[in-house]
């Protein structure tokens, strides 16, 4: 080899990008996911069809009379959201993995957590869209009024927690051999507190129970959301960096 000079080290530039570029990156990722999805509608249509099919299956599987139906509604709703949610999470990550786009995201000079927050927000958006469609459909099919502000809050809090953990775990699942199958196996045992709290709180609101009785479950949801968003944010680097 020819004799070469050593490169000089540049003075250490700040390796902490400014907060505005961090937020811009999150915004860019969310924008990208929404634009791509609104155009192809693959993910949303798959999730919606699946959710409606699940409700249909529950209809025949449980054979509910009107009074039992009232009690079972929160459970059916949340089971539906949980299953349809995994579809969305899987697809969202698969898009990045398949065309090597995850590398494209990792090459950008931004903190890794921007990728996490960006994907989590888009996943949350998709999940909320599905929920917004399922609620009225369920209301009509079962003649139940689901337009309850308390219920909306529970759905919001529950979805946030679900997606916070789900995005982290789907980032892992998409890099394994078993891929799509891996996510529900990893996710469901860990997301049970959300399901418990969300079903109980939803049921409380729908049955017009006193607020003090529902609050413990709401608190549980909030605690879960905060803890797991923090944990996922801290740990995401280990999942995407090699």
């Amino acid at each position, binding site marked *: *080899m*020819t004799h*070469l*000079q*050593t*490169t*000089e*080290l*540049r003075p*250490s*530039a700040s*390796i*902490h*990008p400014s907060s505005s*570029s961090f937020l*811009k*990156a999150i*915004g*860019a*990722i969310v*924008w*990208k996911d929404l*634009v*791509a*999805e609104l*155009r*192809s509608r693959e993910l949303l249509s798959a999730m919606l069809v699946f959710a409606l099919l699940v409700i249909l299956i529950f209809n025949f599987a449980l054979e509910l009379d009107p009074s039992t139906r009232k009690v079972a509604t929160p459970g059916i709703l949340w089971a539906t959201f949980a299953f349809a949610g995994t579809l969305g999470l899987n697809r969202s990550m698969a*898009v990045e993995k398949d*065309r*090597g*786009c995850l*590398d*494209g*995201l*990792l*090459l*950008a*000079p*931004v*903190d890794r957590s921007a990728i996490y927050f960006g994907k989590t927000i888009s996943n949350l958006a998709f999940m909320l869209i599905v929920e917004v469609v399922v609620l009225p459909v369920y209301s009509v099919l079962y003649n139940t009024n689901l337009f309850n502000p308390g219920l909306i809050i529970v759905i919001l809090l529950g979805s946030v927690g679900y997606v916070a953990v789900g995005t982290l775990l789907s980032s892992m699942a998409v890099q394994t051999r078993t891929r799509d199958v891996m996510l529900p196996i990893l996710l469901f045992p860990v997301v049970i507190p959300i399901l418990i709290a969300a079903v109980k709180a939803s049921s409380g609101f729908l049955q017009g129970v006193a607020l003090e009785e529902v609050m413990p479950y709401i608190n549980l949801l909030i605690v879960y959301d905060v803890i797991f968003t923090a944990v996922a944010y801290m740990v995401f680097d280990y999942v995407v*960096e*090699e």
Partner: protein
Amino acid sequence: MISVKKLVKRFGLKTVLRSLDFEVQEGEFVALLGPNGAGKTTFLRILASLSRPTFGDVRVAGYRLPNQAAAVRRNLGVVSHLPLLYGDLTAEENLRFYGRMYAVPELNHRIDDILALVGLSSRRRDLVRTFSRGMQQRLAIGRAILHDPDVLLFDEPHTGLDQDACDMLDNLLREVAGQGRTVVMTSHDLARVEDLASRFDVLSHGVVTASAGRNDLGGHNLLDFYRQALAG
């Protein structure tokens, strides 16, 4: 521009790169050759900050990897054999997305310039999904230089392209490299690389076994040089 000393990369118990030394000066166009499994892609991924070195000193564009990775990334453009483009977005939207991720100033202008450079201005509103592989690679190069990086890394960019597409790609590569950038490109296509690069390095069994500038090749064929490097 690029300085690599005693780079070792292990995957678990398997050693892929063994005490690799590698230096590239500013403006050089280095072709990295080698058989499959030699570690070219692994090496390029480390330079691209996508993979961490197990041991060794790696410096790109004046910053050290992996500690100063974010600073390195600002000066790096990467094209791999996967397009790194979103099929459901238009060409323009893809560039806009990456432009935002890299905080490229005067983005609209830049997008226009890049699209003109890669010859895709007329297809700017078309979904990348509809592009041929050659067009996707050209757009990928456009994406790679969007933020005007000093260093470009290409991992077998000619993969899957027909002759015409390859020729178009080569013209683009020459133009882009000619702007004073430092380029490292891995390839299996010796004929093409012979015209493009200013230096040829051969990677075999995890180390660089031979390196020669274009002029040093002299009367020898690149193919002979390559075969010799592998045999020795």
